[in-house]
């Protein structure tokens, strides 16, 4: 009952804010685009329905010649297990200035800087953290971070971009989620020693340095190539220290989490696929140098390692869009955990209809576990899109893609742009 009341309240707030934004648009003199998105899902494992409503407002305002105020505001209400009932935040808010000095462009504020040529799982896209969820079918969302980005155009084909973020921001995993995850991980180990664990208490080691990166890009006739260097941190938390607090009222694990430093030397390219007219080849290669990270005597990170995505996309004569390739190291894999995968996305709009069926899979070449997404998009009207998809994983929970079994279920979304 309480949850229903909260949902009604948050829905009312969102609708009120939507109306406010629409009505105040002429007064604010912004150019805005709004998207109202409903997402519903049914988890096959937990057998529960989740509902999320998001209002996203993109805005641009001319301040003066070639200087803009830009951003996007997100208001979200959700009944998901680890989600806040309502959140309201500017995902981006920045000044965007062109030709600050000749051929130099600047962005400053809460910004997003995206690197990498691959459409999925780029190991070079490190500057901004991602939300905790992982998208198998689309470009992963990123969260804005306070910083500055400068791009100097050496000539019309060559540019040098630098980004500097004074404060490191990690992916926002809810404490409750981490506590449940670590409790599930460590509780059986202590139970074997006859100790029952009642809960996990978290603390964090702050990252003590800023994040920065440089990227040099050049457009060759058949290919665009970029070399990049990133100096920052893993945005997912790693366990750093674990203590057991014995209490008469219940034993508590005191877990300290930290964010290991890392450097990434990257090469990305995109361009014509040799020998196949109309196909585009994209590649991201990352050489990752981690901070040595030891937890309970085990080296979680030690030696430099590689991650890579090599993909191609092509539209056939019968208008089937194909995007597939090879992945070495998914976003949740690090160091020695990295392994090889194949992925493919295919879709095709059915002739003379507004229906687009699609299929995506990721296949582990190590243990042949497989994540699958079967979906159908329906363009209800020019600005309304409905999507239905079914996600399932072939393989056990301890397989390479077993972590995605938590996402098994049926997903529905309805997006209205206005």
């Amino acid at each position: 009952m309480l949850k229903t009341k909260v949902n009604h309240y948050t829905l009312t707030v969102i609708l009120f804010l939507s109306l406010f934004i629409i009505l105040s648009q002429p007064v604010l003199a912004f150019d805005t685009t709004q998207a109202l998105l409903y997402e519903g899902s049914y988890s096959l494992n937990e057998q529960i329905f989740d509902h999320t409503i998001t209002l996203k407002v993109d805005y641009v305002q001319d301040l003066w010649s070639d200087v803009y105020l830009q951003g996007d505001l997100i208001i979200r209400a959700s009944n998901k297990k680890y989600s806040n009932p309502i959140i309201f935040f500017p995902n981006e808010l920045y000044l965007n200035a062109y030709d600050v000095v000749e051929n130099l462009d600047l962005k400053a504020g809460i910004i997003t800087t995206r690197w990498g040529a691959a459409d999925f799982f780029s190991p070079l896209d490190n500057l901004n953290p991602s939300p905790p969820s992982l998208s198998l079918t689309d470009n992963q969302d990123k969260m804005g971070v306070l910083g500055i980005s400068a791009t100097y155009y050496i000539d019309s084909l060559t540019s040098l971009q630098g980004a500097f973020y004074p404060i490191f921001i990690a992916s926002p995993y809810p404490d409750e989620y981490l506590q449940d995850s670590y409790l599930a991980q460590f509780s059986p180990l202590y139970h074997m020693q006859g100790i029952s664990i009642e809960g996990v208490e978290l603390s964090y080691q702050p990252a003590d340095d800023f994040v920065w990166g440089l990227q040099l890009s050049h457009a060759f006739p058949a290919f665009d190539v970029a070399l990049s260097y990133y100096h920052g941190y893993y945005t997912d938390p790693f366990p750093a220290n674990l203590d057991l607090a014995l209490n008469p009222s219940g034993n508590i694990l005191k877990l300290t989490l930290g964010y290991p430093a890392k450097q990434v030397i990257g090469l990305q390219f995109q361009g014509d696929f040799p020998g196949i007219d109309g196909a585009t080849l994209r590649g991201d290669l990352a050489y990752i140098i981690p901070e040595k990270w030891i937890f309970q005597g085990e080296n979680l990170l030690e030696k430099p390692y590689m991650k890579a995505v090599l993909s191609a996309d092509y539209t056939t004569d019968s208008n089937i869009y194909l995007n597939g390739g090879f992945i070495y190291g998914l976003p949740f894999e690090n160091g020695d955990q990295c392994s090889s995968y194949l992925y493919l996305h295919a879709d095709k709009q059915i002739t003379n209809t507004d229906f687009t069926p699609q299929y995506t899979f990721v296949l582990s070449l190590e243990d042949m576990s497989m994540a699958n997404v079967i979906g159908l998009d329906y363009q209800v009207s020019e600005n309304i899109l409905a999507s239905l998809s079914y996600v399932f994983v072939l393989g056990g929970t301890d397989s390479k893609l077993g972590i995605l079994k938590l996402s098994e279920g049926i997903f529905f979304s309805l997006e209205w742009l206005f």
Partner: protein
Amino acid sequence: MIVLKKFTNLFLLSVLVIILSISGISVYSEQLTVDEIIDRVKENQVESKNSKMQAEMVIIDKNGKSETREMLMYQKEEDDKMSILMRFLAPKNVEGVTLLSADGGDKIYLYMPAYQKPRRIAGASKKESFMGTDFSYEDLGMDYQSDEYEKKILKETETLYSIEVIPTGEDISYSKFMLSVDKELFYMEKVEFYSLEGEHTKSLAIQEIKVDENNKITPTKIEITNLIDNHRTTLNIKEIEYDLDLPGDFFSLRTMQKPKL
């Protein structure tokens, strides 16, 4: 990705429609020879180093279902290579999506605001239909008025010259073009495209024009019909400017990411 593909197709279709319309597919009028007709048509075309156009495009499928897009397009021709920068302004689901085609279509990029970075798209061979559209890059770069092409007047009515153009000396995908030239104003009213098999596959019709004070002609309403798919695209040009003072690097990745063009 679906959206990306659809945008790419729409963009390329739009670009081709516009290029075919304003770059002068012209040719051609009294007891004139075919070359004299073509010279008169060329004289009536606006010559400019670049142009900026705001237009509305209506795409109509064989069931009569239509989609309307508003767009802004810049183009220039340098060293016989066309560069195009085009952005959709409406409706909301395509707003801000921008296409850059540089070096005569050798480099093509698509920028979608939600994607947050330009995405390079491979150039196809000149003859191939690109990304499922009914047009090829060849259509973009083709000079229908080339002196090397064989031309002859097939028919003359009170209002039109019908001219057959046989492309020669080049490896192109059409066996002929049929041009209809207005005898009074000397502009091309219609172009019919014939495949190598001799099949009439598509038509371009200039339905409305604007004549400026120097008697230069700008098409303001164009319709392209794909006779294979029974698919039509109408382009209504709302505003066109010529010879703008654009920076040297205007047709670039840098410009395509700007929030306002």
